[in-house]
């Protein structure tokens, strides 16, 4: 009887201590996020908080939430990164959206109108964003219909072959390797590509 009681107390104490650890870790992470945000909020810039814990990307400026994009799913491969500010190094996709070049009108064309523009619908929904420091965001759309199902199945199969190899290769070279998989609905994936440029600043919270 005494032994059982002692065991229960020990289990409860260890659960309490673990919960305290988690709360402490969350406070430390939140503290780092706030400090990084305050640094960025001093400047007139748009920045992005990729919040893996809360499954969302928040487009922000001066601490204001300008837009929230909610993940449909997410995952992390490799060592989680420290809650910090990261510069976007490269934004890559299979087919980059191109800009139209306007040709000056002649007299005959002056009364005709043709809409040529780079719009949200022209943005890709499947792309990668390489951040300084070795982390990469792999953004892809939610599976809706046959084409995205094929695309996502291909992506997953390639991912499970290449990720472990990249991990070994980077570990041997002493380079940190972290891959975040982010699944957004198609419009949100396009909106994120639209808003993010190659000199943007991202805070990763994971």
């Amino acid at each position, binding site marked *: 009887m005494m032994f059982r009681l002692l065991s229960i107390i020990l289990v409860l104490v260890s659960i309490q201590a673990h919960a305290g650890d988690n709360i402490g870790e969350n406070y430390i992470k939140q503290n780092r996020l706030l400090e990084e945000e305050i640094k960025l909020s001093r400047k007139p810039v748009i920045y992005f908080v990729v919040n893996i814990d809360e499954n969302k990307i928040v487009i922000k400026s001066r601490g204001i939430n300008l837009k929230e994009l909610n993940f449909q799913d997410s995952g992390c491969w490799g060592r989680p990164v420290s809650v910090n500010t990261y510069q976007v190094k490269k934004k890559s996709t299979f087919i980059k959206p191109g800009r139209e070049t306007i040709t*000056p009108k002649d007299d005959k064309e002056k009364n005709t109108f043709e809409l040529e523009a780079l719009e949200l619908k022209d943005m890709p929904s499947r792309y990668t964003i390489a951040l300084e420091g070795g982390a990469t965001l792999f953004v892809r759309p939610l599976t809706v219909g046959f084409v995205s199902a094929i695309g996502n199945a291909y992506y997953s199969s390639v991912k499970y072959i290449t990720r472990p190899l990249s991990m070994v290769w980077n570990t041997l070279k002493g380079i940190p390797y972290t891959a975040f998989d982010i699944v957004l609905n198609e419009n949100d994936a396009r909106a994120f590509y639209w808003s993010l440029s190659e000199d943007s600043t991202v805070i990763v919270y994971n």
Partner: protein
Amino acid sequence: MPGNNKFIKIIIALFIIFLAVESVGYYLGTNTTSPDNKIKTKHKTSLNALKVKNTVLKRKLASFNPDGIYIVVDSGMNRLYLKKGNKTIREAIVSCGSGNILKDPSGERQWIFDTPVGEYKVKSKRTSPLWTKPDWAFIEDGEAIPKDPNKRIEKGVLGDYALGFGNGYFIHGTLYSRLLGRNVSHGCIRVGDKDLKIIYNAAELGARIYIF
């Protein structure tokens, strides 16, 4: 036949090596701890002190928020939001930059018709604004650039009101209201008449504009 056996053995050996590397990579990829865990062990501050510190930081961050009415423009969705605090006072369908490129036939100049992103302020407010056509407007129309500045002035094309936010960019009205919601402008933010009047009256000089 002996050659075939050797080939099969090599293939099997390579496959085993590949599987071993994959397993090591998989283990390394899935068994990692957060660098913030290491910070945790070094951190001497108590939970309560951290909680208080975070509350202070949240207040400090909130102090950067604009006090009065401000404008948020989502250039991809072609939406403008007139806001105060977290509350949206008005949502308007607008037209932002087309992203097209125009090259001067001489090859010396080039314009990219993007709406600029970032934080801006309302620098000027005008009623019945006149448009001083820039060089690109003449080049795009295949016309010669006039030497007389008066020949650049055009009435009525900017609608009833215009709010300037620097470098020749304005939030203004449009003759092409059927194209609202599409990216068709040369970088300015075109707004429908009713929405423009409300935005003009609400946003004071110095009001912040956030474009993304």
